[in-house]
């Protein structure tokens, strides 16, 4: 009897919608509020632009909200965010950079605590009380050019790298100028104990490595073939490898790295859009997108398509404050440059 079917259909549909509304209830309310704010979220970050683009498109598809992204290096993001905040007019809703500068900004009150429902998916020890979950890690390792080094000659460990046979063949960012590298050198004790680390640093300096401005130029020199071995982000082996460069990375097992967070601004011009974005960023879909683009996301079982990525054990680098950096820079200037 068609009429009864119609009533049944309408009833079931309404029921379905009701349950869907319950499940997404919080989501849709947030999105509605975000749309009233202007329908967009403004993020400043050091997340690579292609990755941010991919996330932005997916975010818009899912919620109808736009994401405006200002990309720069972490220090510049910190500079701009702090300056705007101190002038009383921050323009950003969310910041996407690594741990150390975020702690400095946190101390000045730039962020609001936000307990995103998506945060439940992260291991408890990866959640910072103020900044939220550490959603991805950037890992520093040894990357080399396969065409320039025979498989037998490839270094097998960090200790191997300071073997005199590699003298003149290693490139790394200047630890007296590049803050992440300063951090890396200062955190080596976490991998090999303090005494061994102190000796290692001196041996490394004795190798007279070629010094460049940051981790990317180091990777580029290996890609172009100018220098065969680099201390750089492991993900570049994947990113440049995708383009055809003959790169591989040394399977060190434990590698040092930094964590990235996505805190919400305490004076966000679009707070609801900001929250909706953080919810999305920390969610399953976004994690998968980032991993596919080469990122080491902090989700169990989700890995970038780099061979043996699942075997890498992430060790968090030591945080340094302004005084700590100044001291280390002075120390490393003596060791590396004199």
């Amino acid at each position, binding site marked *: 009897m068609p009429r009864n079917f119609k009533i049944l259909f309408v009833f079931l549909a309404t029921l379905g919608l009701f349950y869907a509304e319950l499940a997404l209830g919080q989501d849709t309310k947030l999105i509605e509020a975000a749309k009233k704010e202007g329908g967009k979220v*403004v993020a400043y970050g050091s997340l690579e*632009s292609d990755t941010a683009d991919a996330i932005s498109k997916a975010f818009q598809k899912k919620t109808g909200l736009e994401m405006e992204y200002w990309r720069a290096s972490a220090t510049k993001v910190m500079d701009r965010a702090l300056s705007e905040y101190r002038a009383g007019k921050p323009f950003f809703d969310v910041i996407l950079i690594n741990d150390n500068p975020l702690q400095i900004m946190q101390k000045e009150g730039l962020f609001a605590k936000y307990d995103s429902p998506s945060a439940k998916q992260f291991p408890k020890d990866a959640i910072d009380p103020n900044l939220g979950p550490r959603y991805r890690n950037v890992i520093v390792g040894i990357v080399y050019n396969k065409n320039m080094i025979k498989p037998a000659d490839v270094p097998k460990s960090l200790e191997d790298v300071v073997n005199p046979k590699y003298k003149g063949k290693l490139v790394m960012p200047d630890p007296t100028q590049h803050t992440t590298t300063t951090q890396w050198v200062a955190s080596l004790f976490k991998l090999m104990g303090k005494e061994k680390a102190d000796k290692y640093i001196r041996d490394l300096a004795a190798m007279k490595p070629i010094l460049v401005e940051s981790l990317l130029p180091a990777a580029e020199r290996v890609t172009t073939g100018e220098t065969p071995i680099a201390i750089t982000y492991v993900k570049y082996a994947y990113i440049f490898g995708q383009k055809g460069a003959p790169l591989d990375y040394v399977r060190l097992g434990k590698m040092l790295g930094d964590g990235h967070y996505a805190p919400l601004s305490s004076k966000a011009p679009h707070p609801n859009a900001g929250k909706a974005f953080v919810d999305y960023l920390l969610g399953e879909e976004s994690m998968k997108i980032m991993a596919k683009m080469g990122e080491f996301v902090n989700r169990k079982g989700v890995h970038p398509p780099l061979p043996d990525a699942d075997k890498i054990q992430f060790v968090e680098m030591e945080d340094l404050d*302004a005084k700590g950096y100044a001291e280390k*820079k002075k120390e490393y200037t003596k060791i590396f440059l004199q």
Partner: protein
Amino acid sequence: MNHRTLAIGRVPPAAATLTRVASFFSQPMNLIFMGVAGVIAFLALYPSFFLLYGSFTDAPLGVPGHFTLHNYVQAYSDPEAYRLILTSFIFGIGASGLSVVLALTLAWITIRTNAPFRRLFELTAIIPNIMPPLLISISWVLLLNPSNGLINVTLMRLLGLAKAPFNIYSVPGLIFVEGLILTPLAFLIIAAAMKGMDPALEESAKTLGSNEFGVATRITFPLMRPAILAAGTLNFVRAVESFDTPAIIALPARIEVFTTKIWREALGSFPTNHNLAATYGVGILAIALIFVYLYRRFTSQVESFSTVTGKAFRPHQIELGKWRYLASSVAFVLLILMVVLPFLVLLLVSLMPYYHVPTWETWHNLTLSNYRYILDTSRVHKAFGNSLFLAIVGASICMFLAALTSYITVRTKIAGRGLLEGLVFIPWAFPGTALALGLLWAYVDFPIPIYATIWIIMIAYVTRFLPYGLRAVSSTIIQIHKELEEASTACGAGFFATFRRILIPLMRPGIMAGWIILATIYIREFSASIFLYSPGSEPLGPLLYFLYLDGMRGRVGALGVVISIICVILIAFAQRLSRWEAK
């Protein structure tokens, strides 16, 4: 708020002074001076004030701090700082000297002789200014690095050498690359002055029996002194202030210059110490002002440099006979070094999926994907739109201000005009990032909402690059003899009529040179824009920067190639507009 108001002069109490003031303002020249001075003072001092203030406190902008001289002590009591200033001086003198020599040669060949292809040379000499210095430095490293530089590898194969003949990671390498980068600027200034010269002096030298070479060395080049000094000064300060080239070439060579030290101590430190950066900026400013003073001293006998007089003339062209092919070859070689080689490397980088020393297989792997990215991405189109707008409108506004300022400082006797010129240099002396932050702070809370729009970037560009426009146009205005203006005023023309119908046409080579310099800088500038733009108003410079940061050299190369081509079209158009009317 107190720090935002500028106190202008004292308040005169007596009526007698009131009449003096009234008569001062009744002269149109003085009104214009006040107007221009007001605009420039505001543009220059408003952001610089925050930086200067910052150099005397111990807290960052916006955080209450205490007055301290600690920054100055830290910056200038370090003996290493002076050793590095010396290295920077050597680097600066070498690079600017090289650029002036190359520019003089090229200018003489293209403007003064009948060498074939000289129009082409004139056009292409500007191209290196369009490419961001970062890209040029990278290109030269790919060409001349001792391990797999293209030129080295080719020479080693051809001549059977065991070791690479050239090593770019050295002081000569640094001077060579920076010199090439600076040559277009020197060329534009010197060529403009040469175009405007009255050939009467050269012709009389020839009549008295001098050969062409004698004329060049004893008449032409000495008369070019203001232009040569202008170009040399600008390039010297620019070399000393540059960071991109030293970061790429000096660092691996373990050579330290002043800017890499500034980077280590202030800008690259954590968190960034802008107070210290501002302190260093004050030092650079002092150096720049000394040079400005010297420049004014050397060109103070204005009359002796006037070569543009009331007599109608055509620029003297030297018939070289069969030597003209040699001249063309020399220009050709120079252009290969300045333009062709870096551009070719850029092209290669844009067509290869990742850069490596090309082999026969490379041909199969060439790809157009980077160009496809440019065509497909709306963000890139928008950036082009923004940058072209900034370049065309910004350069015009800046040259208008520069022409007026230059007239005031060179032509009038108004008290305080030297101060005006000094004001123009203040924002320029601060390191780019430091100035950007000063501008951010100055305009983020401005009553008119220009922060985060394209207009704040325009203001930043005009503020920062006014000295270039000023230098370009000053050297031409010096050549114009007073009699032309006096004739105009005698015929009853007011200031603006004279300015518009006599001076601007005569200053055209200088104005055009300045416009081209500015437009090509604006189109790819990033150190100031990076802090001031927002996603909607993104120009090309920051786009190139973040593509580079993400390791996408191929896209950077492709974008660089397209920007160069568009700029060449823009410049050819501009040069057309400035062409001399024969008779």
